[in-house]
């Protein structure tokens, strides 16, 4: 696989999804006939030379967690290819697979369940060092752990030697960020890292994630349904609905000017902390009775306020709104189908990103 050429620049790709589809259930001999298409024909790339924060957003059942599990290598694509450093994921050697496991690190949603309550928190920090044989010296190990904790804004003396129940949810989640950091990953995949934490503590966690990206150059994939925090910390965004990507681009294009009716509904439904600006009328519910394979056209057609005849019979392609925004909606058909199916081609490249960001604190 030669390096991908994007906007005239040659960059090496860390991970590439090439028309990846993931289905659950089967229509075969023993299957019930219900097939859920959790991720439908998604192409994207994660570059390590251009570290950015990318949000994957959507409601429950949109496929955002399946997509993140695909990226982590814990799901195997049902269709399409996944490439790690240019090599087909299913053909990796043991050593390459091990390397992959170190280079992409997850942070999970629940800071309570990721700990064994009988072990001190040191355990989750010791384990990766031991498993990946990062060092054999005890002194070096302590140094690594302390550095990682300080990086996420925790004081090692106040954290180590304690049990999980002695720490707040925010502290526990930051230890998970520190654990990921120990392995010097290239990509951190955070699946709803703040949804179980109090609003007043969210800021510190998101801030430490943002610092990883800026200071250490780690790419972050932030999976969430909370568009407000997504807008605040990420550079790029992918909006998913029932397994399909409905809109993608930079947050500065997508959030202020959503083009897909689903993105518009999503943004409109965010409870704004402003009593003078309340929700409009109740939106229609999703019809879960039609299975994914029964839908011939756009998956959002049954709830869409702007539905047309074509939406029910034909699947929309990816249309480019401008260089930093794409949508899969027939309302924008006249813009023309994208040549490059890679949705990340609409994302900002790093040099632009840095300029657009506020200065480091």
């Amino acid at each position: 696989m030669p390096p991908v050429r994007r906007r005239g620049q040659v960059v090496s790709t860390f991970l590439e999804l090439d028309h990846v589809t993931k289905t659950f259930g089967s229509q075969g001999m023993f299957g019930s006939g219900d097939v859920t298409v959790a991720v439908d024909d998604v192409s994207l790339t994660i570059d390590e030379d251009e570290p950015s924060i990318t949000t994957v957003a959507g409601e429950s059942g949109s496929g955002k967690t399946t997509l993140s599990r695909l990226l982590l290598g814990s799901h195997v694509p049902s269709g399409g290819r996944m490439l790690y450093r240019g090599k087909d994921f299913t053909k990796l050697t043991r050593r390459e697979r091990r390397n992959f496991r170190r280079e992409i690190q997850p942070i999970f949603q629940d800071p309570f369940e990721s700990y064994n309550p009988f072990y001190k928190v040191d355990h989750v920090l010791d384990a990766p060092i031991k498993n990946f044989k990062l060092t054999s010296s005890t002194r070096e190990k302590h140094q690594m752990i302390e550095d990682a904790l300080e990086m996420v804004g925790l004081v090692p003396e106040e954290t180590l030697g304690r049990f999980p129940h002695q720490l707040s949810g925010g502290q526990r989640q930051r230890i998970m960020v520190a654990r990921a950091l120990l392995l010097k990953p290239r990509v951190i995949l955070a699946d709803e890292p703040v949804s179980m934490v109090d609003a007043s503590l969210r800021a510190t966690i998101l801030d430490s994630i943002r610092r990883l990206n800026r200071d250490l150059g780690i790419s972050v994939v932030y999976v969430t349904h909370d568009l407000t925090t997504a807008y605040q910390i990420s550079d790029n965004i992918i909006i998913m609905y029932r397994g399909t990507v409905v809109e993608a681009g930079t947050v500065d294009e997508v959030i202020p000017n959503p083009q897909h009716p689903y993105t518009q509904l999503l943004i409109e439904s965010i409870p704004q902390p402003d009593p003078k600006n309340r929700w409009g009328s109740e939106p229609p519910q999703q019809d879960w009775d039609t299975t994914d394979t029964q839908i011939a056209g756009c998956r959002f057609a049954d709830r869409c306020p702007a539905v047309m005849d074509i939406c029910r019979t034909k699947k929309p392609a990816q249309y480019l709104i401008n260089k930093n925004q794409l949508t899969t909606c027939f309302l924008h058909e006249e813009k023309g189908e994208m040549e490059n199916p890679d949705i990340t081609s609409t994302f900002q490249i790093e040099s632009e990103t840095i300029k657009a960001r506020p200065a480091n604190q």
Partner: protein
Amino acid sequence: MSTEQAIQTYRQDARITDVDALVVKNFSVYYETDTGTVKACDDVSFTLKQGERFALVGESGSGKTTLAMGLMRLTRPPGHIASGSVMLNGRDITTLSDDDMRKARLSDLALVPQGAMNSLNPVMRIEHQIVDGILDHLEEDEPAPTKEELQETVRDLLIRVGLRPGVARLFPHELSGGMKQRVAMAIGISLRPRLIIADEPTSALDVVVQRQIMQTLGRLQEGLDASIMLVGHDMGLVAQFADTIGVMYAGKLVEVGPVEEVFSDPKHPYTRLLIGSLPSLKEKREFLGIPGLPPQLIFLPKGCAFEDRCPSRFEKCAGSVPQKLNIGGRRDVACHLYEGEVKS
């Protein structure tokens, strides 16, 4: 003002009456532990009008769920109601016998729990779970409704909460989180209660479903002419849904007032920081958290519990606990900063 807003204001005015539906006075729930008394809910007083939507907000551990459970008299040992009265439609429910209280739950005041979590029985069909409460609340001399009547009731309830009638025959694991929450609401309204206590009804759901659930809850409330007490920590949701807001901190109600006034002019420094910490979709800025952690309820300081985190503290704050002050209209605040204003 847009038409939508005008309709909303009109409906809001039509909904809230001047009748006191719930009057809570000096209500305290304490937990006795080996190390001392935990004052999880301490000396809380507030009034809810008939038809009003009251939102109780606070961080985890601030005592908001303790208060809600205390009002339902569902506090479990070592917790107990230490003092205070709760007048619901003119009847003090703290003095009711256990039997009468059991009858009052669901028919006078109903709890809508976090349905998406574990409040439904996994091995019972939805229809049986809805019918359960109805049958349990029959008077002794009342004839039991026929199977057809019950089916009709279940059907009607499911339609009212926005589910198709076929859901009656399903088990909880066959439903999505939003559908389970709707079932929890159907059970809650099955006996037309006068007060609905909704404890974080949408905390596990995503924004579009959350909006649908809250709007359904509002519609049901209007149909029943009931009052709602919403317990939660999402300030955005409160701003969208409630008429009145109560802010809890370390077991005390520190500020109460109409939602518009509290959001546009928060008085208590904690409320101010809480509103200031909300991320916005309009502008990108650095995150502002509230520095520090809430105190442990077992070792409360002598003075104000927020003193060590408060940006406007002065000498008096460490010395004595601020009392609730009325600062005009329906606005109460418990902060030493406003004592001078009230006297003058």
